[in-house]
């Protein structure tokens, strides 16, 4: 990953902050009902992240999936969620509340921050020469060989390399999203319904995320409908017949 890319990444708030922003824009309090109200906005924002900062997408999806649970609960009052899911929602609510309160602290920093330092210190041994014994100024470390330097730089660069390539791989998979969407709609053409479990069975984390995103997109565009007949049962994805 290049530094320019990192800089771009720095322009994006985290998902909790973003969600709080959406709630506050509408002057709402943090309640489950209100979370359901901003779910659509959050999903729209996801597309920005997907295009411009794909390597933090997975984290936004974690929050998105919890919001979808909140939303389905609001739409289907009889829906019973698993205990773990309920906890996930409560945890999200809790973090949002902390975050909201903490916002004042962040504003303190923002207001007090000076682009140029207000305080100055001295360089390490700024007046070194007066103290150097025997006026010598060369102190090599003991037992250091050129090959030691080679070993150190080799390790350092391979770590950096890992850091760069992990990100690249992830980007490539996400870029295939549009292709995946087409593929998926193709399958629905012939099958009419598809099971989410089957679709994501034995796939990598990145692929499951991609699938999930595809589904979110298609729901948003009213191209598919998602159903779960009974609790714990398989999620079925159905193509919506275009009205003529």
């Amino acid at each position: 990953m290049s530094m320019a890319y990192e800089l771009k990444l720095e322009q994006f708030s985290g998902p909790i902050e973003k969600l709080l922003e959406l709630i506050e824009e509408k002057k709402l309090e943090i309640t489950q009902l209100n979370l359901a109200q901003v779910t659509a906005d959050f999903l729209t924002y996801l597309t920005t992240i997907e295009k411009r900062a794909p390597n933090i997408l997975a984290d936004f999806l974690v929050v998105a999936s919890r919001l979808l649970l909140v939303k389905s609960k609001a739409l289907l009052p009889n829906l019973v969620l698993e205990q773990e899911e309920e906890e996930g929602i409560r945890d999200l609510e809790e973090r949002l509340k902390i975050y909201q309160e903490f916002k004042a602290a962040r504003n303190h920093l923002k207001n007090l921050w000076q682009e140029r330092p207000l305080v100055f210190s001295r360089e390490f041994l700024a007046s070194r020469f007066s103290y150097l014994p025997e006026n010598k100024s060369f102190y090599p470390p003991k037992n250091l060989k050129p090959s030691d330097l080679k070993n150190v730089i080799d390790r350092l660069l391979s770590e950096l390399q890992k850091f760069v390539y992990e990100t690249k791989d992830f980007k490539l998979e996400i870029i295939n999203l549009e292709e995946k969407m087409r593929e998926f709609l193709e399958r629905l053409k012939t099958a009419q319904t598809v099971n989410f479990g089957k679709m994501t069975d034995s796939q990598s984390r990145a692929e499951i995320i991609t699938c999930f995103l595809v589904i979110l997109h298609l729901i948003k565009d009213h191209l598919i409908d998602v159903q779960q007949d009974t609790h714990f049962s398989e999620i079925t994805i159905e193509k919506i017949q275009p009205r003529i």
Partner: protein
Amino acid sequence: MEEQTKNNLTAALESLLFIYGEPMELKKIAELLEIKKEELEEIINVFEIQLKSDNNRGLMLNRIGDQIQLATKPDFHKLGEKIIKEEIKENLTPAALETLSIVAYNGPIARSMVDYLRGVNSGYILRNLLVRGLVERYPDPQRPYIFLYNISFDFLKHFGLAKQEELPEYQKYNNLVEKFKLASSDKTSLGETKT
């Protein structure tokens, strides 16, 4: 401690920090001055108050954890800017501000906790803050495979603060997250790695 010795030790501390320039570990200072750490703490207190209360003095003592550094008082920043002419403008992007405020009010803090509060992997942002020198990290003494992040002396310089605790409403926001840390400690212990 006798008055005379204490005086000499304050003077010794001043000259030591003046020569060294960079932040210095209390342990190292105590060794060099050949005194106990408790004695050193006492001298530091005296020195700190002297600097702060005396309008004749242009210097102050900055402290983070077990390190101290001698620096100029913020009142004289215009003079500093005139002498040190190069561009040292640092701006804060939204993600940097978000991350930095968590570290500032709650450091030393593990990355997993920053990630959890923000809801996003903060590895890149923290690395960037490390590179810019606004944040420092060191291995957690309790859990050697985990790094703890805290603000740096350079961070203090941008605010003209002598220590982290001087941040506005520090205690309030520190407590807020501490409470939360406790409540969520079982969740975060899962995904931690040294990064």
